Structures are given as C-alpha cells and as structure tokens.
C-alpha cells in the first residue's frame, strides 16, 4: 500500500532517485557482517561463565530469524509462532526421552515436524486478512498449548518434559555442564541456517516476498502466485522455528510448557521489532538486547520488567519505527547522504 501512495503523490523521477539502482541479487558478505559473526566467538572467550546465556541468545535469535521471514519479509502478522518452536522442542525432546538420543537427527526431526505443521497451517493463514491471520495463528498456538497441557502422560504437562538423554554430538562431543558443546552446536546451527536464509531472502523468491508485502495487488500481474509464495515462506519459517525449538530442547535437556505459550510468541514479536524487521540481522540484535536486558532487569524485579517492556513497545511504535537497526541505518544516512545521489 505504501508503494502505491508514494508513487501517486510524488513525481516519478524523485521516487526513482530514492530507490537503490536496480541490480541483481547480491549476497556478497560485507565486512560488517563478518565482524558481527565474530562477536559470539569473542564472547565465548571473554565471558566463559555466561556460555549458557549466550547459547540461549543464539537459539532465540534463530527463532526470531524465522519470524522475520514471515513477518518482516512477507508481512504476515503472526501471534502464534511459538507453536512451531514448541513442536520442534517437543519432537526432539520426546525422541531423546524414548531412546533416540542422536542430536543431529533429532534436530532435523524437530524441523520436519514443525514444517509439516507449518504447511498445514499456512493454507489457513493465507486465506484471511490481518485480523483473521492473527487469530488463526494465535488459535493454533493455544490449541497446541492446551493439547500439550492435557496430554501430560506424553508431554509431562505443566511440569515439563524431563529425563531427556541427549547423545554425544557426532558420537564424540558430550554436552557438558559449562555449555561448551552447547555453545558451538548452537553457533554452528545458527550460522548455517542463517546463511541459507540470507541466501533465500536475496533470491528472486525473497524479493517477491518483499513485493507481496509492499503491494500485494500488483504481484499477480507480475505472474506471481501470491498464496503459493506465502505458503512457502510460512512453511520455511515454521521449519526454522522448529529447528530453534529442537536446539533449545537438546541444549537445555528440558522442554517446558512455556515453549508453546502465548508470552513466548509475543516476546518474539517484541524482539524482532526491537531489532528491526525485514533485515534478518535485526532479529539477532533484538534477541540479544532483549535477552540481556531481561536477564538484568528481571533479576531485579519481574513486574518492573514487564512494565518497561510495554513502555518500550509503545515508544518504538510511536517514535522509533525500524527498531535498533532501522535507527542505525538512519544515522548512517545522515553521515553519508551523498550516496543517494549516485546514479
């Protein structure tokens, strides 16, 4: 819709100057990105006492990346993304409780189960408008929560699923209490999945998602089957969320009922918006800032934490669209405005 109004109200030449020059998808890694990926490794050596927290940040970051695909790129407002996270977590958890402790296959199984659920859900989700989508995603997440809650003989109910026996990674590395193996495992999975997602969003498929987000009525005239692309990206997002869930289950050797809860979905949206949507890196930055702040403030007083996160949301929406990375980008634009004028 934005694209429409801008084109109508402003002279065409001006709009063309505002847009980047047309180019083929370019996914060369920038120096800044390489520095970004060196940060967790630096953190590993700098804060050896916080490896568990750092691993969790990376896992939640992966989860946030999966939401960024469907919310940030395709523009589907989902309030129930925890459904797929929880499915992945319970799949990996149940497999290892029942004797299948091999981590990598458990991880993949979590992704596959979440992906199948995502595919089934996607057909419902693409039918409606924003409100219906929001309600359907929320409803499916709540249904799964109720199911996991009531099926206590399988899932452990409110007590959570414990007694997981996760085997050695590659048959050699055992998950230790300090979280060394968990750290490298999480980091590797995050990096590999992120690299794939980065390629996806820079591909023609990813560009068509942005097109759908910005002007859904125009896309069919370009020969794009909008619903099929939305189903595709929703499924992909569900797979990645399932991987993140399975990863959390394996590294913490526990699955809580809260992995399916509404607060988890809501917090995820908050992280994503805090970092900045539609950038992939925004999801990681948002997750890191959110988790660190939560770790610090919730330690002081959980009630204050909820108040401040609410206030923060209101302020972001009113004054700071684009979140942290959006703000940084605007700062960069101020510093070097001459880049815009290049042909």
């Amino acid at each position, binding site marked *: 819709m934005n694209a429409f109004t801008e084109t109508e109200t402003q002279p065409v030449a001006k709009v063309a100057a505002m847009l980047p020059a047309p180019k083929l998808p370019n996914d060369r890694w920038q120096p800044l990105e390489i520095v970004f990926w060196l940060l967790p490794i630096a953190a590993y050596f700098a804060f050896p006492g916080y490896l568990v927290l750092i691993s969790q940040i990376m896992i939640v970051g992966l989860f946030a990346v999966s939401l960024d695909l469907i*919310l940030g790129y395709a*523009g589907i*407002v989902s*309030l129930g993304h925890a459904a797929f996270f929880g499915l992945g977590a319970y799949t990996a958890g149940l497999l290892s409780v029942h004797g299948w402790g091999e981590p990598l296959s458990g991880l993949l199984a979590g992704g596959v189960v979440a992906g199948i659920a995502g595919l089934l859900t996607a057909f*419902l989700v693409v*039918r*409606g*408008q*924003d*409100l*219906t989508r*929001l*309600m*359907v995603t*929320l*409803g*499916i997440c*709540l*249904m799964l929560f*109720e*199911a996991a*809650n*009531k099926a206590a003989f399988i899932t452990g109910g409110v007590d959570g699923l414990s007694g997981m026996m996760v085997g050695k990674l590659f048959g050699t590395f055992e998950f230790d209490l300090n979280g060394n193996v968990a750290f490298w495992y999480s980091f590797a999975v995050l990096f590999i999945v992120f690299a794939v997602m980065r390629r996806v969003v820079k591909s023609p498929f990813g560009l068509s998602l942005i097109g759908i987000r910005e002007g859904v009525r125009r896309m069919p005239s370009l020969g794009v089957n909008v619903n099929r692309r939305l189903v595709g990206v929703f499924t992909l997002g569900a797979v990645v969320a399932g991987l993140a869930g399975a990863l959390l289950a394996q590294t913490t050797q526990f699955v809580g009922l809260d992995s399916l809860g*509404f*607060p988890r979905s*809501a917090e995820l*949206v*908050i992280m994503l*918006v805090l970092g900045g*949507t539609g950038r992939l890196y925004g999801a990681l930055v948002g997750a890191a800032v959110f988790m660190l702040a939560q770790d610090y403030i919730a330690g002081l007083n959980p*009630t*204050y934490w*909820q*108040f401040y*996160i*609410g*206030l*923060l*949301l*209101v302020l*972001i*929406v*009113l004054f700071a*669209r684009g979140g942290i990375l959006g703000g940084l980008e605007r700062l960069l634009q101020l510093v070097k405005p001459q880049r815009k004028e290049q042909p």
Partner: protein
Amino acid sequence: MLANFAGVLFDGIAYGSLLFLISVGLSVTMGMMNFINLAHGAFAMLGGYVSVSLLSRFGVPFLASLPLAFIASALVGLVLERVLYRRLYKASHLDQVLFSIGLTFMAVAGATYFYGPTQQPVVLPDWLRGQVSLLGLDVGAYRVFLIGVVVLVTVALGLLIERTRFGAQIRASVDNQTAAAGLGINVSLVFSLTFALGSGLAGLGGGLGIDVLGLDPTFPVKYMVYFLLVVAVGGAGTIKGPLLAAIILGVFDVAGKYYVPEVGAFVIYALMVVLLILFPMGLMRRKA
C-alpha cells in the same frame, strides 16, 4: 439430564452475554477505526478494579459501583484515544498490535504493583446470591441479573445507534469516513466518543464479571483471545455479529468445560478455527 443441559445452556448464555458486553466496544473500534486493539481487556480490568476498590474500601453499594466503573473506564479510554490511539489509526496492523500489546503489559504490571498478583474477592449483595427458580429451573441469581443488565444495555445501545443523531453519525463514519467528514460530521470527535463508549462498556463488563471471570492482573492477557474471538468470529463493525458470536462461544465454552473437562479450553479454540475457516470475514458483515 435435560434440566442439566438447560442449566449449562443458561450459564453459557450468561457467560456469553458478559463476553458480548466487554467485546462490543472492540467490535466498533475495529470496524470503525480499523484498529486492532489488543489492550481492550485492560479497560475491562480497570472497570473491575474500580468496582472492587469502591466496594471494599469506600463501602459504595454494588449497583452504584457499576456506573462508576463505566465512567472511569470511559474517561481513561477518552484520554488514551485523544493522546495515543489516534496517532495510529493509519499505521500498519503490526504497529497497532505491538502498541496495544505494550499498553496491555503496562496495565498488567501496573495492576500487579497496586493490587498485588492475587485474585480480588468480590462481595455481592444478599439478593444476588444463591439460586432462584426460573420456569422450574434453578439458576444462579447473579446469572439472571447479568443477563438482565446485558439485555438492557444491548437494547439501549441498539436504540442509540439506530435511532439517534449520534448513532447515525457513528454508522456514517463506519461506512465511509471521507464521505461522513464531507457531510460535516466531526469524525474525529465521533471516534473519540465511540472509543470512550466502548471502553466504558468494557469497564462495566469488567465490574459485572468479577464473580464470573475473576479479577487478577493477568486478566487482559487471559481473556484477550476471547474478546478478539468474539469480534473476529462475529464480524467487526456490527452489534448483532458479536452478540451472536459471544452467545455461541459462551455456550460452547461452558458446555465444553462441563461435559468434556479433560480437553478443557480445546473446544473453544477448535470452534474458533473452524468458524474462521468457514466465515473468514465473520458471521455478519456490515454492508457498506
């Protein structure tokens, strides 16, 4: 067995009418301003806390506390609409959702700060306690009172919207804001007053509902789904749609919890998904 069923049906209708009372304001704000307000339950919670405080701390009689709960929520709604909400009418749905989740979180934290995390007790007057016999059926006196109030409010609301000048202005603004403004209707004032009215009704519902829904700081989150459900299933922007949806959901929820307690809230969520698939635009759609 049959009397049992009638009792469940009656409780379901009472529950549904309460849901309707709280959600009707949400339906109008969604239909009229196209605003997804997840913080609507916070206004109901506010009404509940106002009512509880008046009852226990100031000794105000129960019946008198209800209009005051209405007024308090309506005033807060009016102020918030003027200061915050109106900035976001043109914003994307994602922004609206985030903004109202933020407000909800702040309301939850605020209520915990002032009232503590426990359930608030409410002492009903004697004449509303116990059972009364209605057509040979023993039903809770408070449920009868609840349905009576909601019927009165619904009739008044129907008259207000269908028969008064202000109602005509509301309908015109829902149908077409631009045309309504062109005809000299102060659309922004109509929005503010409607928002206040909706918030006030939610407050009234919150005050009335303490005995049925309970009241603790997580109220807005716990029931958010139900309020949204009523509007999404019923169709935003109408009165009849949410009424029908609220009664259906109320009856199914009570019946589900009574007959199949082991599946719990599953019934209502399954019903919601089915209804939304069958009627993606809601049961009743306002014809523009």
